[in-house]
């Protein structure tokens, strides 16, 4: 395993671990992200509150850890959705005929034409009526995932096209498999390899997108914490309480760094000649 890959995975495991830990001890009354300490409102970091308290006297450490669970969960859902939809449609397009391929490719292009943050902002803020029943985290994850699938789509489509001309596809067709079956069961597993390196970058982008949406007030909304809405809180108190935004932002940075390091490590494994 390359060092960046190991470092990235370690970082992500540590962040997920702290989020899970916070969720695990919450029933015991520890690290409660909603508990208000009226004695200490806007208190700087101290023994009682390692990361300080916010404008309502809530513990910033607890909110950062619980916010991490929400943010990473939403980003994870978005990534899983983007990768699976992108890969499945990519395999279908790569082995479909001209018309099917053109149809899917143009649709992917159209989705790709929207900057993800802008499209998700418009959809969540102005039109998410059919999605309002969902919990905020899943809603954000679904909408962000909707605008990240064209990237994986392109990788898998290109690779499937290459494979469709190979004996592998001929053999499957000769055995009587239909087109969709050849695409999804025979070619797709082979075509996933080139997707490995870009996948963590998709995840990093999704983490950032969630934070942006939370910051703008259309993602996961307070009182439930997320790294995005904690940053918004940080901006609100930038003149009086630096710790409110500093710590959630640092966790966000580490999460994105973890994703990018993992991606960089995988890229180097794929192309060792570019190892710098």
């Amino acid at each position: 395993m390359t060092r960046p890959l190991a470092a990235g995975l370690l970082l992500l495991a540590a962040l997920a671990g702290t989020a899970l830990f916070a969720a695990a001890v919450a029933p015991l009354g520890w690290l409660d992200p909603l508990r208000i300490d009226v004695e200490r409102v806007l208190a700087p970091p101290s023994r009682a509150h390692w990361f300080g308290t916010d404008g309502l006297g809530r513990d910033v450490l607890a909110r950062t850890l619980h916010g991490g669970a929400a943010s990473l969960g939403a980003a994870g859902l978005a990534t899983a959705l983007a990768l699976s939809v992108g890969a499945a449609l990519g395999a279908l397009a790569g082995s479909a005929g001209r018309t099917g391929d053109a149809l899917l490719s143009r649709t992917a292009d159209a989705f790709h034409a929207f900057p993800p943050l802008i499209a998700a902002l418009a959809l969540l803020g102005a039109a998410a009526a059919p999605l309002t029943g969902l919990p905020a985290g899943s809603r954000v994850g679904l909408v962000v995932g909707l605008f990240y699938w064209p990237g994986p789509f392109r990788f898998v489509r290109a690779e499937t096209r290459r494979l469709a001309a190979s004996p592998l596809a001929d053999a499957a067709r000769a055995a009587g498999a239909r087109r969709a079956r050849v695409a999804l069961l025979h070619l797709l597993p082979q075509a996933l390899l080139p997707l490995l390196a870009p996948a963590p970058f998709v995840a990093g982008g999704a983490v950032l997108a969630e934070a942006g949406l939370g910051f703008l007030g259309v993602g996961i909304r307070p009182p439930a914490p997320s790294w995005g809405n904690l940053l918004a809180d940080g901006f609100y108190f930038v003149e009086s309480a630096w710790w409110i935004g500093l710590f959630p932002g640092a966790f966000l940075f580490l999460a994105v760094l973890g994703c990018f390091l993992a991606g960089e490590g995988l890229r180097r494994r794929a192309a060792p000649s570019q190892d710098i």
Partner: protein
Amino acid sequence: MTFRRAALQGAAAAVTLLVAAFLTYAALAALPGDPLAAFVPEEQRLTLDPERRAALEHELGLDRPLPLRFARWLGAAVAGDLGTSFRTRRPVAREIAERLGPTLELNATALALIAGVGLPLGWWAARRSAARGARWGSAALLALYALPTLWVALLLQYLLAVRLGLLPLYGRSDPVGGGLGSRLAHLALPAVTLALHQVAFVALFARDTARAGFLSRHAQRARSAGLPEARVFARHGVRPSLVPLAALLGLMVPGLASGSVLIESVFAWPGLGTYFVQAVLARDLPVVMALSLLASGLTVAGSLLADALAGAADPRVAGTAEGRR
């Protein structure tokens, strides 16, 4: 680049835009459930009596099927009529024109920083790539790339504006006596934070291309012919990294657009980004539709430009890229 290829690419881009426009329209005009929502502000819509409502729907063509309505909206949009804002009751096109200036100012400054800082940084990293500790330098570049824009904005605001008082916290100029100095001081933080992510991206890219170039056999040959190292680097490192970079600029549009939305909101910059956020939060659908369409149009134009530049710079690309699918 042949004419046929250019025409094919243009046609593909037009189809892409058309589908993107339809998606925008369908998502924003049809998804909310009530088609009238895209034309009449919520508080008026809910108190309409049924007769008036039916008349209005007929007048606006809302009793017709979605594709027809879309065609009508698109026709008007192409003719420059983007509808009327719910909030201000003014034409959306005029409001966009008014707010274009500040956004262009911010993005142009950011682009200058991206090219002016990102490129030299990448070249420097490429030259040092054989040196000891180069791995740490490359990790630092990756860390720079991973820095969340919002967090950097917050840290810079706190350090430079709140603690040191060197720069203003937000706004575009002082309300009174806002001369050039004040304008530049207000521009500094937003432009730097907007540029940061792309600076790292360009630096990583320039590093890889410059390094590949100056380790190539041509470069080895030039070295063995006795050319000084600086000249070898300029010719075989710097030059090949400039070519794909031209194309890269076109691909930066989505990043800059998203960045503008966040950065303008942070720094209360009176441009299209803040306008978009305000419109979304107020459910001002004509504005949201117009700006979504603008963003996707710019993205498509950017990637078209990128393809054209990449093809013009390197004929090998022209035969293989997107246009031939």
